[in-house]
């Protein structure tokens, strides 16, 4: 559906995008994740035809989007990270206006608009003024607007920003429904929890580059080190801590009661070696298990620019002499 290759965009000396690649399959719900300033909005604006790249190519549904901008606009529905509403305009008039912008008029436009408003739950708000709607309603209206011309790809830039948890859940459900109907969706967010439960595919971007991309399962499997080992100690906690603190493959340690959570960057063989070493120094162990991977951990791992060893609560307590 979407193929982006070698996208570069430079503002002065700042490289907003530095050779970004992206592939989205038909029917995917693609989560585009990255910290603030990673290049998400710039990428989305280029894909939506609102910004020209300095270098690179964008292909949507087999069409070269940069060479045929009008063709691109027929295929894309764009929802920005703001609402973009007019004063003194009713919901139905707002929809009529944007339908006319896509060349749709008359009964066809009116029916399509009513159908979409019903779909996003604003069917009974047609005669309300747009600027009087709540944030959640405005966001749903923006979604309905973006779907007016029946695009093949829906591009959304941080759509959940500023919404309360309930509205966010409802919005997420609407997106799931659209995706289930076959709509390909590109969704950017820095709220990883939003995407982890919603998306079928994920791309992690930082400093204008795609760091990691693939299906959700692939991603969580790929980063083995993101899964911490939870060691349940029966006896001899100090010996376990002494060993773990000096171990070269341990990146961080946190302790809760008799459980130690260890960020261990070794292979499965090295993992079993760690267990052996712990037993050899006299630590009695009740449990030794890797926690299932999650997107949050992957994201933190990838976007952490320094390979630093993190000292957590237990070590703080030790150093303060508690």
């Amino acid at each position, binding site marked *: 559906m979407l193929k982006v290759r070698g996208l570069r965009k430079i503002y002065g000396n700042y490289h907003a995008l530095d050779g970004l690649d992206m592939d989205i399959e038909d029917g995917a719900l693609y989560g585009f994740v990255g910290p603030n300033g990673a290049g998400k909005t710039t990428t989305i604006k280029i894909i939506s035809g609102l910004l020209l790249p300095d270098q690179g190519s964008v292909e949507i549904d087999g069409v070269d989007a940069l060479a045929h901008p009008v063709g691109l606009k027929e295929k894309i529905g764009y929802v920005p990270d703001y609402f973009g509403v007019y004063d003194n305009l009713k919901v139905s008039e707002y929809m009529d206006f944007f339908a*006319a912008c896509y*060349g749709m008029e008359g009964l066809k436009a009116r029916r399509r608009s009513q159908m979409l408003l019903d779909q996003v739950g604003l069917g009974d708000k047609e005669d309300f003024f747009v600027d009087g709607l709540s944030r959640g309603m405005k966001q749903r209206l923006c979604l309905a607007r973006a779907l007016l011309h029946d695009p093949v790809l829906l591009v959304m830039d941080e759509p959940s920003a500023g919404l309360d948890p309930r509205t966010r859940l409802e919005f997420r459900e609407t997106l799931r429904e659209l995706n289930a109907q076959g709509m390909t969706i590109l969704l950017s967010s820095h709220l990883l929890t939003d995407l982890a439960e919603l998306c079928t595919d994920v791309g992690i971007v930082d400093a204008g580059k795609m760091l990691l991309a693939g299906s959700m399962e692939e991603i969580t499997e790929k980063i083995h080190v993101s899964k911490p080992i939870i060691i349940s100690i029966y006896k001899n906690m100090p010996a376990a801590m002494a060993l773990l603190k000096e171990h070269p493959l341990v990146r961080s340690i946190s302790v809760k009661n008799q459980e130690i959570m260890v960020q261990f960057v070794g292979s499965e063989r090295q993992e079993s070696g760690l267990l052996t070493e712990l037993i050899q120094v006299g630590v009695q162990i009740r449990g030794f298990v890797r926690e299932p991977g999650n997107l949050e951990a992957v994201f933190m791992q990838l976007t952490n620019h320094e390979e630093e060893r993190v000292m957590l609560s237990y070590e703080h307590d030790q150093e303060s002499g508690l």
Partner: protein
Amino acid sequence: MNMIKNPVYKREMRVSARSFRLALVLLVFNGILALVALLNMYSMLAQIRVTAEIQYSSFLDLYLFMAVLEFVMLVFIMPAITAGSISGERERQTLDLMLSTKMAPIQIILGKLAASLSTMVLLIISSFPILALVFVYGGVTIKDIVMLLACYGAAALFVGSLGVCCSALFRKSTLSTVVAYGIMGGVVIGTYGINQLALFFNRMPGGGYFTAASAGTGDGSSGGFLYLLLMNPTVTFVMTMLRLSGREAASGNITQWFGNHGENFVSQNWVGCSVVIQIVMAVILIRVAVWAVRPGKKAW
């Protein structure tokens, strides 16, 4: 291009018709005109009561006075209406939404400009009953009114395009309005000032070098700078009014304004040439505005 089908034009007309601002502008605009017209008539009638002499030229003066007042208000209101047109969309964050649709930048610009011009046309038409007061006494023909409207139209198109252009170039409506008024002031006062300055220098001893065209003409003139006044809608308006009032001969041809200039095609058809120049400038300004709102272009 069918403006009635332009979505931006349709939306602007709907929103402005619904807003309180338009009603207020109409009230203030016509209120000032009506007040001036009625005061003027009252003063004339008072004079007639005292002197028992009817000066019919006073009714023409009333017409001229109201036409001038209307022109000044048009030139002042038009930038205020248009200078926030595109920057306002940016501030509301709706420009990108429009650009993400199949709408071309030229449609957006023309829709905005046409909506502003429609507001101006509404203002002018709404003032007709007040202007028509002079018909009570006669002296002004329909042709005179049409000429005046043509002059208003050219000025409104030029000033409106300038406002839309500034609005497309600048991100903030406040800055755009200030720049639009600044440029308008430059065109109206600046072109006149340059001619005065050129005339002043050329009348100084040995100053003929300032404008080669006036060298050796004896008393000097502003030379080629005179043609800068073609851009000036105020000069076009003044020339039109002089012609309408039959005072063209008394006040002198444009060639006599800043020293003696030779007669040529432009000076003989000053109003027509000036209207054409203003329309050409409006087209250039519209093209600049279209360039400024194309996707990826950052506003200042």
